[in-house]
């Protein structure tokens, strides 16, 4: 029965069905030039660098995933370790991998093992800079206006009778205001964050020194420059302003080396601005100009604490400049050989 039905069906089919329209002969498929790539997903396991405990296992990770994306994934399973406090490395004692590094370009197999180190609580560079610079600005003004409990009560809310003290206040305030504005509008930071404890260290340094300097400059018993008097102050002001403009010019030049949102590093070169011509001789002219500004301020106020502050700042900036100079030399084989880190030909 079935067979008959079957036959009938097919017969019927052939009767009912329209004459089969033959599809156009299949176009000869050109042999695929590229072998169809099978997407090989990676597996990522993250171990604690110290205890080697397995902290996280991620499967089906795209081969072109970046370390930054892996950090975000890790953050999901460990919410208290936000990405900026993660240090991911190939070797427990090795260097941290960069956020931009791509998984498949790293020397790992399809199961990648990374080691994690907690960098501790992090705070953004912008926050630190704003806090450490706002302090000196405000503290100095408190001393300038002789807020109570600093000097003897009879001096409360008086101002100094020396014009150089007013000038010094303007210069100091201008300097820190400039720094605040540069932090907000000029600088392009390589790193987003730094360890939290740095803000305490940095603020102690800046705020402490600012208070110490301001105490003496605005003191009722302050002695204005005596060695060369008015000439000295005028000369000091010229040096100070020159170096402030220079420092700002360098910051702008460095900003223009780097497109917004990027972390590229290029060799800085002199631009049309004459203040940047110092790049011919120095790797970190921003520090050179900064030193110059504070030397000017020291000369202007003839105050030993200011000289100490200048000296300490100079030592720190020299350390930074030497480090920066070294990394320039390491990264760029064609780095101009005439340049010194901070002082032309000397240091």
């Amino acid at each position, binding site marked *: 029965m079935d067979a008959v039905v079957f036959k009938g069906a097919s017969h019927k089919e052939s009767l009912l069905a329209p004459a089969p329209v033959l599809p156009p002969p299949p176009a000869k498929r050109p042999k695929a030039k590229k072998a169809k790539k099978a997407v090989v997903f990676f597996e990522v396991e993250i171990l604690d660098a110290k205890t080697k405990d397995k902290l996280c296992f991620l499967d089906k990770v795209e081969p072109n995933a970046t370390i930054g994306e892996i950090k975000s994934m890790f953050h999901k399973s460990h919410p208290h370790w936000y990405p900026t406090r993660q240090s991911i490395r190939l070797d427990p004692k090795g260097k941290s991998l960069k956020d931009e590094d791509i998984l498949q370009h790293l*020397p790992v*197999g399809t199961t990648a093992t990374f080691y994690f180190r907690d960098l501790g609580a992090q705070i953004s560079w912008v926050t630190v800079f704003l806090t450490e610079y706002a302090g000196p600005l405000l503290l100095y003004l408190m001393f300038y206006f002789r807020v109570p409990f600093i000097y003897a009560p009879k001096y409360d809310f008086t101002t100094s009778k020396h014009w150089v003290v007013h000038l010094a206040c303007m210069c100091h305030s201008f300097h820190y205001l400039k720094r605040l504005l540069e932090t907000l509008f000029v600088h392009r930071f390589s790193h987003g964050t730094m360890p939290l404890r740095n803000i305490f260290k940095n603020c102690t340094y800046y705020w402490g020194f600012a208070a110490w300097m301001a105490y003496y400059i605005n003191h009722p018993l302050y002695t204005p420059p005596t060695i060369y008097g008015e000439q000295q102050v005028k000369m000091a002001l010229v040096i100070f302003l020159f170096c402030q403009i220079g420092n700002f010019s360098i910051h702008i030049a460095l900003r223009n080396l780097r497109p917004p949102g990027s972390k590229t590093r290029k060799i800085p070169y002199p631009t049309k601005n004459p203040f940047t011509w110092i790049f011919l001789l120095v790797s970190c002219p921003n520090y050179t100009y900064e030193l110059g500004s504070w030397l000017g301020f020291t000369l202007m106020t003839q105050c030993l604490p200011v000289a100490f502050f200048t000296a300490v700042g100079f030592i720190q900036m020299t350390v930074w400049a030497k480090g920066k100079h070294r990394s320039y030399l390491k990264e760029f084989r064609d780095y101009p050989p005439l340049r010194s880190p901070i002082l032309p030909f000397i240091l």
Partner: protein
Amino acid sequence: MTAPAMGTTKTTHIDVAPKKKKGPGALATAYLVIYNVVMTAGWLVIAVGLVRAYLARGSYHGLYYSIEKPLKFFQTGALLEILHCAVGIVPSSVVLTGFQVLSRVFLTWAVTHSVREVQSEDSVLLFVSAWTITEIIRYSFYTFSLLNHLPYLIKWARYTFFLVLYPMGVTGELLTIYAALPYVQKTGLYSITLPNKYNFSFDYHTFLILTMVSYIPLFPQLYFHMMRQRKKVLCHVEEFKTE
């Protein structure tokens, strides 16, 4: 970074060769042995001087004057140890060593020498004796270590005596600084007042008080560091002994 070979599942292991600790060269070792022997001898001279003076006078009072010169000489000589660290022939931190030596030198010169009135205080004897015993043990420890013949007794003494000597020395030092305060205030020693050409002031009296206050956070840290060292050094030896 070139793309990894597909199919490998093992990550490349970075070879960690055992790091050979670079000790000082032969010349540096010879110099250090001489230095440490001389210092041991120097502090022994101070120890003997104290004992002889005590036996001669029959009292603890005023023994400082009998050992004043060798104390100043050998304690100041310890400044060389900062140089040793800076140059690298001794593996300690320059900052830590500098801090320890400078605080000793400060007490010797800026307090005891400078304020004559405290020299007859008993607190001076307290810290001088603590220093003397500590330094004799410490310098002989270094001498024997450099010659690779460290007797266990010396090692034990170095990491045990401090338990008493450290607090003893600190007490002596603090009492001496405290005793110096009224004289410093009265004479304005080492102090600068306003107004002056360089717009700077310094009050040594306040500075000494701040120094005393700084002992509060610093002393426990150093003391517990030594206790941890003691556990590490002495307990490991015991482990080996039982094997």
